[in-house]
């Protein structure tokens, strides 16, 4: 235990970095400090829930808030892009809508192929 206590200061800094790291999406959601390119595509993101006693009691406020935060938390587009890039780089799976992988890993949009 004595050895472990040696690095308490460093560990506090590291834990602080971790807490800051997991808070970044929430901070970005509130402040929109960084400009993030939105995802392409026709997607209707959920709107913020309107609070009323009725919506709270029947649970619709909670459900709508859940959808809103899922669709719009900070850096969501970056996380989706990270997922798609990992899937493409590791397993050659194209997650972008309507995209196919051709010869030598060239990407094609299926609508152009069909045309």
């Amino acid at each position, binding site marked *: 235990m004595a050895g472990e206590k040696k*690095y308490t200061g460093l560990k506090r800094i590291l834990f602080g970095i971790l807490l800051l790291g997991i808070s970044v999406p929430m901070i970005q959601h509130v402040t929109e400090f960084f400009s993030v390119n939105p995802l392409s595509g026709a997607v209707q993101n959920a709107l913020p829930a309107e609070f009323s006693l009725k919506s709270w009691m029947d649970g619709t406020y909670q459900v709508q808030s859940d959808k809103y935060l899922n669709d719009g938390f900070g850096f969501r587009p970056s996380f989706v892009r990270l997922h798609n890039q990992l899937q493409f780089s590791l397993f050659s799976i194209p997650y972008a809508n309507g995209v196919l992988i051709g010869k030598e890993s060239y990407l094609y949009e299926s609508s152009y192929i069909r045309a």
Partner: protein
Amino acid sequence: MSFPQLIAGPIVRFGLVARQLISRPDTIDDKLYGFHRFCLGLGKKVLIANVLDRQADFFLDLPAAELSTADAWFGMLCFTFQIYFDFAGYSDMAIGLGRMMGFTFPENFNNPYNSRSISEFWQRWHMTLGTWMRDYLYIPLGGNRVKNGRLYTNLLIVFVISGFWHGDSWNFVLWGLFHGTFLILDRLFLEKFLHRIGKIPSVLITFFIVVIGWAIFSIEDDLPHLSDYLGRMFAFDFSHLSTNITTEKLVILCLAALISFACISRLGNRIQGFIYSEKLNATHSIGITVASMVLFCVCTAYVTASGFNPFIYFRF
């Protein structure tokens, strides 16, 4: 209320946490280790169990007549690793969250697929349930201090109830009977035999029995389908392998197998000891912080891009 472990485990008895509820340490080591442990569990759930879940469901939902033997085994291996990584992941997350708040919850898994007998498997799988069953069922029934016939009956009773605990479906009762029978066989001759034939063969035979057990466990409320599925697993029909099996699922299955069996070797044991080490020096602290952050970001990316994936053990 201790929310981290409330729903699925580890099963924490009051005696274990009574003192901690009143007074518990608040150290930075616990917080750092707890976060790291939480991220490891999250990784097990999101990056491994969720991928295998989709594959296992695909095969389990197919009519058995459409399955080749290879398909049936592939699907069941996916379920075998899915249920382990899902539940062990949940337990890691619960233990990690608890540790960040100063609670030390008991371990729930100890490399169960490295067991050399079914008796050993139950000392390594859902260990807190095993302890609960032992203390509240097996020992009150007489424990080991009874004649052999009674002992075997007690084992069957405990395991049938353990199966029934998972749900009111006949397959869970059968699963309990299946494991209870192998525990009796272990006491009669099987465990001695398995220890005589060497480590790797005994681990493989035990794993084979466990996989058959998971087949019984996984197909709920449909005994004819269960019977057909088991039939396909032993039909020796290798005519085709489903085109649904992608590189991603194959790679994740191999990774899951590698992690599950790694501790058979000394090197694997050392690597696991290093990853789960609670002795945090400067280098280790920096290492686990970076690893946890990367794992957390990747898991967030995968959770963001996928739908709702509840923990499998929430059903039981």
